[in-house]
């Protein structure tokens, strides 16, 4: 029996041939073994495709696992903090999973593809942890990142593009729903999910049909301003949406060395995902105790005065910065669509209640010279960007 040679170097996504054609700046990075593009021509223009037209992002490198078997539901319910029994077939759940100490390992989405058949997606790889979780369960976990090509199709015209492509009935699909379509004899799964807090979908298909899908999509989208985008544009949309990213808002608990540097879901504003009515899940005991005794950290969304981006800034309780810092910024950006100076940060309890004012120490460079500014910031409750069209069913046409 001959074995396929081991892949050397970076993997190329099945969409690579199409991305390559659109690539002007040749700026790529590595994402879990794949070449992934930062930007193809101009991150700003790409960003506006997300908010004003349709943006297409190659999601293939995102980690995907298939979870099947008689105990799939029980397995997932022990793995994640939320109640997966409520997620019916054809629905998708945002979920977070913890270690025994209630510290977040990662967040991701779980697709209930068919009765008892799930796909779990996350930014990071978790095979060892997922396999450890199978002990005592009749369940099969398969790593299928390379077996599924995926695209995010996001933006106000995204529904119209997909409708034009011939996906009949897609208008009925609600947020966090998924449907199966036939695409040239292959199964195309479409979910109404995304990382942009805008109207948008994700398309999932076997790699052999990837290029054909891309071509059909771009043909249908020509009049709707469809554009391929890279991670820079997506990252800006992500911060506007107030979504978390591993290695930014939290470190995967199984990667940390020091104690006290990981975060619990309660410390990341994910209380709503923790269902203490479930009798057992990883981290339940620790989280119940944290709930009783109080958390150490709190995730905050900040609306900051001025236009200087608060990257890597310390957060203080007052302008004089007395009493030491109370936390720091984890992600920051100027939001073009909100016209706001926004940031996500982590502060020590009891600071950072919604409505509180905190101060952010911003360093910025002007013609080589550094300047420091203490900027007032208000803790906001809602995502910075959350348009009505995101939830409209059926979505409006363009």
């Amino acid at each position, binding site marked *: 029996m001959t074995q396929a040679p081991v892949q050397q170097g970076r993997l190329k996504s099945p969409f690579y041939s199409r991305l390559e054609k659109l690539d002007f700046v040749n700026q790529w990075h590595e994402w879990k073994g794949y070449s992934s593009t930062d930007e193809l021509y101009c991150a700003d223009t790409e960003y506006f495709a997300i908010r004003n037209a349709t943006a297409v992002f190659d999601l293939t490198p995102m980690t995907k696992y298939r979870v099947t078997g008689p*105990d799939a539901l*029980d*397995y997932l319910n*022990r*793995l994640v903090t939320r109640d997966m029994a409520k997620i019916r077939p054809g629905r998708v759940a945002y979920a977070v999973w913890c*270690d*025994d100490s209630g510290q977040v390992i990662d967040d991701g989405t779980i697709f209930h593809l068919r009765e008892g058949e799930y796909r779990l997606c996350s930014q990071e790889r978790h095979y060892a*942890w997922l396999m*450890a*979780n199978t*002990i*005592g*369960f009749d369940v099969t976990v398969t790593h299928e990142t390379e077996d599924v090509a995926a695209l995010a199709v996001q933006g106000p015209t995204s529904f119209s593009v997909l409708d034009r492509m011939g996906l009949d009935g897609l208008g009925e699909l609600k947020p966090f729903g998924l449907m199966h379509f036939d695409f040239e004899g292959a199964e195309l799964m479409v979910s109404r999910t995304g990382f942009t807090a805008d109207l948008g979908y994700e398309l999932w298909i076997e790699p052999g049909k990837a290029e054909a899908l891309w071509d059909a999509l771009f043909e249908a989208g020509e009049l709707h301003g469809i554009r391929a985008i890279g991670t820079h544009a997506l990252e800006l949309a992500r911060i506007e949406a107030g979504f978390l990213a591993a290695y930014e808002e939290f470190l995967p608990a199984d990667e940390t060395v020091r*104690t006290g540097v990981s975060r619990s879901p309660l410390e990341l504003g994910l209380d709503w995902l923790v269902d203490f009515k479930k*009798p*057992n*899940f*990883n*981290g*339940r*005991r620790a989280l119940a105790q944290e709930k009783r005794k109080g958390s150490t950290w709190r995730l905050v969304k900040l609306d900051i005065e001025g236009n200087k981006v608060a990257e890597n800034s310390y957060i203080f309780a007052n302008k004089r910065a007395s009493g030491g810092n109370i936390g720091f910024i984890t992600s920051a950006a100027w939001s073009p669509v909100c016209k706001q100076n926004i940031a996500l940060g982590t502060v020590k309890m009891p600071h950072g209640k919604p409505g509180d004012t905190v101060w952010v120490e911003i360093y910025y460079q002007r013609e080589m010279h550094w300047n420091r500014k203490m900027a007032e910031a208000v803790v906001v409750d809602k995502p910075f960007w959350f348009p009505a069209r995101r939830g409209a069913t059926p979505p409006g046409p363009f």
Partner: protein
Amino acid sequence: MTDKYDAIVVGAGHNGLVCSALLARAGKNVLVLEANAQVGGAAVTREFAEGHSVSACAHLLYQLQPEVRKELQLSPKLAGEDMTTIALAEDGQHLRLSADAVTGVSDDDAAQYRRFRKRMTRFSDLLRKYLNKAPPRLGTKNLSDLFTLGQLGFDIRRLGKEEMQEFLRLIGMNIHDEVTERFESPLLKGAISLDAVLGTHLGPRSPNTIVTYLYRLAGDHGRVAAVRGGMGSVSEELAHAARSSGVTIRTGMPVKRIIVGNGRVTGVETASGETFSSYMVISNADPKRTIMDLVGARHVEAGFARRMHHLRSRGNAAKLHLALDGLPTIDGLDKKDFGQRLVIAGDEHYVERAFNPAKYGEYSPEPVVEMTFPSFRDESLAPTGKHVMSAVVQYAPYSLREGWSDATKKAFNDTVIATIAKYAPDIAQRITASELLTPADIEDEFHITGGHWHHGELTLDQFLFVRPVHGAAQYKMPLDGLWLCGAGAHPGGGVSGAAGRNAARTILKWEKAA
């Protein structure tokens, strides 16, 4: 119909009995459920051939803790006390080892042995103090834990600079390096090596074998005793103490599962389908069986389940029981010597060589043997003029590559008899009946995962603060209402009662605090 108890103890092993008796004396309504017809777990006496009885698993008493004896007013009747270990030599030039002296060796070796035992006893005394306490948690702010930790540090420091350095040097080391540095007599080196590895899946060159040696000494300075009526009489006495304290003991009631409801333990179900309710279930079964089989991994968190899954508990010691129509002849032994403990471990390499095949799933072609003739001192165990031999034989891996079958058992049995025959040539002619218990048989009969005496290898990564695993070292499992009280918990195996007593005390302390 469901009966309700304050506490249910799964398994009437000696630790389960100690734990139940102490809880009952504190006013608890305790039920003990034992799978076998007899109480005692691996500390039982049973007939293996008509009129011939032996201690079926544990056969020598060297660890029963004075605290346990005192609190439960135990006074086991001993058939032999402070037994001498005779290291058999093929040429009849045997060595005799006692707690502080050895004969049959050079003066240098004799002097070294005294120094060696003195130092080891000093270190094991330090350990002994902590056998009878719940091990402190690391990284905690709990005052009593911090105090115990501080005390441990202080006790080590108090050894004095030189001895502390020696302690820290030795504690992770192997027995082979220590005996080769110290002694010249091969037989002496072999005998000490054997003591360090008895009951483990370790060879003398394996790291940790100083710890196992110290653990053996920690019980009673390494003094070995035989119990009149076999080990079962200790269990009977414990069961009596438990019953008279109000404990209900039901034998022949294997627990099929520990019932978990709404995230906590609520009782147990027996194989016959009977259920018993209690908010406290204390398992005398080994940790792996308790969590993986009786509770179910899904009812605990994944990190804990993974640690339990990886708990090492591969038994490697077999038990051989022989019914003899008379004592065998061993060159160089007096008749009275048959009342002592006889060991076959020719030299320090012999023990390691015996271990080598075990690493690859094969039994030793030349095994190490610890033999006793219990009937010599205790005529109740065999008909007049007849005798029984009870031997621990290593190595016989639990997961024999070929699998344990009648054929492989017979082959190993013949190997052991041939080994013994080198010293006792007439042994084969004396045998009227025999029984070999491999670790697989020990698992079947005594329900110990892997057939391991200690319910889990006794090595530094599964010792003290991390026994059986990190996060569960204080008898309380990370599942509300579930406790461990057996050898898998701190401090470990041997008929000591320490785990059972510590568990009971910890439970009562928790209840008081709650």
